[in-house]
């Protein structure tokens, strides 16, 4: 159904497990809005980011309570910009999950109402789930040695 509606979305079906749709980053708000309003995907159950060395991937797990079915969207994101639009206006639950992805991976979400670190301290340097992250020797005078 999504394939007819969004021709730009690429369907990926692995041999095992459920498939997903690959959506371009600049189309994600449009796709998500349509999925919520026309396809009853009323719940964004999980929003995560992955550092795949060459590029970032942002994964959206949607769920429809009335239709009782899940849907997975993925967005490939270039490391140079690492900026993409926020879906927090569509599902308010995206607010904190996008903050978490920003906190740990450094992906910046445009039009997010309050994009700041959610778990790590405000003065933390770097984004620790990036593969290129190097752990500093100490934090606030505390040694990080094991």
């Amino acid at each position: 159904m999504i394939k007819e509606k969004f021709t730009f979305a690429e369907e990926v079906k692995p041999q095992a497990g459920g498939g997903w749709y690959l959506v371009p980053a600049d189309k994600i708000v449009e796709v998500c809005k349509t999925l919520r309003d026309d396809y009853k995907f009323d719940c964004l159950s999980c929003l995560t980011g992955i550092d795949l060395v060459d590029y970032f991937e942002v994964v959206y797990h949607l769920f429809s309570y009335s239709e009782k079915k899940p849907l997975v969207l993925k967005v490939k994101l270039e490391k140079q910009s690492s900026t993409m639009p926020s879906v927090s206006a569509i599902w308010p639950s995206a607010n904190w999950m996008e903050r978490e992805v920003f906190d740990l991976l450094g992906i910046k979400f445009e039009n997010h109402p309050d994009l700041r670190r959610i778990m790590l301290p405000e003065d933390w340097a770097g984004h620790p789930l990036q593969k290129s992250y190097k752990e500093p020797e100490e934090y606030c005078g505390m040694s990080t040695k094991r």
Partner: protein
Amino acid sequence: MLTLYKQLPNFILTTKLDELLNWCRKSSVWYMLFATACCGIELMQTGGPRCDWDRFGAVPRSTPRQSDLMIIAGTISYKMAVCTRRLYDQMPDPKYVIAMGSCANCGGLFKHSYSVLKGIDKVMPVDIYVPGCPPRPEALTDGLLKLQEKMQKEKFLRS
């Protein structure tokens, strides 16, 4: 410690002032109600009626300003370590610290994490280390008894 001379009339007790003070201190170890992770569940169990720390004079206090003992029960992240050190600084001297469980001892399960402190002894001095993940209430009680032994031996007035 207290030597009871039963032969003396009216049960006179003789002791050293040091030892009397230490006996008083060790019999009223007030610990701070503070837990950061799953060890806190065992800490509640230890303070509860079955293990009953009250019989050793240890009762929980909800403010560091009334506490003698801080039990680090659980994983300490760097963000929490700053707050934990502030709580420790607010406690009046003499103060004691029990590191409860693997996480407080050395980072434990999370020692390869980027955000977890590798042992509370990097932030504050520790008197007793209780191993376990989490330690059973019996182990923590043993830690308290060891701490009481340590307090009893202190030369408090001759420093």
